[in-house]
């Protein structure tokens, strides 16, 4: 039986995180290919509807990443993302979806290694946890 391969959707902010992911790439750091990266200008520009769409479509995990607090390219976008994430966690938990499938991380442009490690960590975590309970249910 084929091993379950988790499908992760990752929302990366352009300035810190995407650059950090680029650094992982140019440094030829190996990390699992299970992640589908979507680039935003800022984590503060992430409307919960995009995370929820991923969840409802059966993504096994969602990774939301931005600049470290205090380092946001637009000053305060990541603070807003943090508040929205807190509400998102709470609503997912209340509505029967495991909130630990959606992660928030701060990763800077110089943290290529940390980005690779985070993806690796999430893939391992999800392999153990199993597929999303919404898989196969479709966007109904």
């Amino acid at each position, binding site marked *: 039986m084929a091993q379950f391969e988790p499908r992760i959707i990752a929302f990366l902010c352009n300035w810190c995180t995407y650059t950090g992911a680029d650094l992982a790439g140019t440094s030829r750091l190996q990390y699992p290919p299970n992640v589908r990266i979507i680039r935003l200008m800022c984590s503060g520009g992430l409307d919960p509807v995009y995370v929820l769409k991923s969840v409802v479509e059966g993504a096994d995990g969602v990774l939301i990443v931005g600049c470290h*607090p205090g380092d946001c390219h637009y000053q305060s976008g990541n603070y807003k993302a943090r508040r929205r994430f*807190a509400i998102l966690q709470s609503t997912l938990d209340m509505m029967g979806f495991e909130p630990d499938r959606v*992660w928030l991380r701060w990763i800077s442009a110089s943290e290529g290694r940390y980005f690779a490690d985070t993806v690796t960590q999430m893939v391992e975590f999800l392999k153990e946890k199993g597929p999303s309970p919404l898989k196969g249910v479709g*966007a109904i």
Partner: protein
Amino acid sequence: MTVNAILAVEESAPETARALLGAMLEKGVVDALLVPWQLPAEDSVAPVLIHDPARLAEARVWSPVMPINAARAVSNLTATGNKPRLGAVLRPCEIRALVELVKLEQAALDNTLIIGLDCPGAYTVADYAELKRDGIDPTAELLSQAADASMTPHQGYQFRQGCRICERPVPEGAHVAVTLGLFGLEEGQMMVSASDGVAQTLELEEAGEPAGRRAAVNRLITARIQARDAAFAEFRERVGDVEGLLAEFSTCIRCHNCMINCPICYCKECIFRTATFDHASDVYYRWADRKGVVRMLPDTTLFHLTRLNHMVTSCIGCGVCTDVCPSDIPVATIFRTVGEKTQAIFDYTPGLNLEDEIPLAVFREDELGGLGERDSHQFQVVP
């Protein structure tokens, strides 16, 4: 400073209230009134805007029916342009919605006088109409229970779902200029508390807080809190996992009534009504190919989860959403239950006062420290 006056009720409390509102118009306390008004068919009551005191004859304060959350009307009347001084007769949940709308910059209070009512509860629009057509006086029935605030609906009927679990049945807050009170009062009495200036113009005399009021209100609040907590517990039991979540919205037909009638959902262009969800035809075939089956039209669960994330921190629990759902989905219970936890994250009570900031409109540098840090998924960072 507030003046607590007791007025003698001759015919009925609604009649006394109407006379007082007339005096407010005549004496220039307000230039116009937003007031509940009996419609010609006499089986419903809706808010109207009145300039002419003569048209107050059909005003019906305390009628137990709420076809819209009138905060939306106040928003329309105060959001733009020059406005005369408006007196808005509102239930507590409508006042709370208005407070949120002001903070969301969708209404203004600078030239508005909030006239709050002790709320005896309300029936659905259909139930109220049925009672009236059967020759019953639902207002008088409920007002006769106001002395001890026992508030039992007519035999064979229930109050609206939002009312059954409402633990804030009296107007609260410094922004409420006038309160028309009934709870805990003796037969033949009506309470009016008003700010100094208004009290003077209306010639109201200080009589102190009515003796039985606090006890009566607390009794009602206690009963409602019990009902509320039972509803929350029952919801959590029912929707604990994905099956429960999907089942909850299984009968949703995407009419969007809940969103359209919610006073807090003020977006002129909800994302779910835009071209974002108008997919090209071939997209559906591709999805069906990949997933095996695609509901037409999709995104029902997404709609509710998104609406929760967008507005639940400001949900004031008026329950109009449940009233208008054609599939009888208990939307108000869902939103209030999720609201309890999400609002608690920020220690926020929506609608309570104008100073508390909307959780999604502000942030602190120093808060929610665990979120985003290394390994944060391993702990319950949010209660």
